[in-house]
């Protein structure tokens, strides 16, 4: 799938089939995450892949935003402690989140290009996730990427028109699409 097509056709899927995902797909999705942009090559991410249905079930139960059951999930965490040692507050409080978000977007696009559905979930209890997955102090779960075969393709959500969100040369100067 061509990149622009993948970006335009990706949706947040909230209903999945129970079908398992091939292992080679999982590795490709993780690789896509690993090669995301990262400030100062910080690479703050740690990925916890979850395939065990019991653990997936527990994650789902403590994550109100985890809608639909999937056979697979990646919990994307950041190593906040290491980030602080290397890059101070900026790295710990901003880059960790920004870099993990970019890794997640890569994963979502990779999953979509492989014919899978996925959704990035932030509505989870970090306290509960840390307990369930035995995540040590200093490592923070940032996002949960739930992945499976889509059972219902969501419709295209509305987006603000480009002209409404884009300025040219300075803020407030309206940018108009060339006709």
């Amino acid at each position, binding site marked *: 799938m061509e990149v622009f097509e993948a970006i335009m056709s990706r949706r947040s899927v*909230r209903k999945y089939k*129970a*079908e*398992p995902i091939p292992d080679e797909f999982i590795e490709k999705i993780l690789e896509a995450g690993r090669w995301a942009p990262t400030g100062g090559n910080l690479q703050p991410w740690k990925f916890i892949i979850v395939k065990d*249905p019991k653990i997936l079930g527990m994650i789902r*139960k*403590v*994550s*109100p*935003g985890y*809608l639909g059951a999937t056979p697979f999930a990646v919990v994307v965490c950041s190593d906040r402690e290491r980030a602080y040692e290397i890059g101070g507050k900026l790295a710990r409080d901003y880059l960790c989140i920004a870099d993990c978000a970019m890794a997640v977007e890569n994963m979502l696009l990779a999953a979509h290009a492989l014919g899978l559905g996925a959704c990035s979930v932030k*509505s*989870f*209890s970090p*306290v*509960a996730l840390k307990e369930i997955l035995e995540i040590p102090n200093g490592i923070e779960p940032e996002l949960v990427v739930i992945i499976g075969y889509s059972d219902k393709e*969501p419709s295209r*959500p*509305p987006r603000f028109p480009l002209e409404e969100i884009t300025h040219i040369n300075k803020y407030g100067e309206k940018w108009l699409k060339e006709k």
Partner: protein
Amino acid sequence: MKQEKKVTGDEYFFEIAVFLATSARGCMDEPPLYGPFRLIDGLSRLIDLPKYTPCLSDDAFLKRMKAEIDEKKFLVMFDQEGFRKFLDELVYQFSKELKERTLK
């Protein structure tokens, strides 16, 4: 594929309890509109309880409401006004049903 273990009523009940507790904490930090969304999603889950608890009987009205909720709950993501109208309509249906059940 491995046969999934049947969920018991107690397990499902506990699942709803965990959902409510984590939602309550989440609502402290999440966008305010997620509050009504969690409540309505919680209601949808609650209506499924008789599926796992033989001593509860299926309620045709509630099942109909659940279908409606599951179809329209995601309006919250992109159509706030539509979501409000859907909740108004839902409450209206519930009030009508309440009246009917009380006065019959």
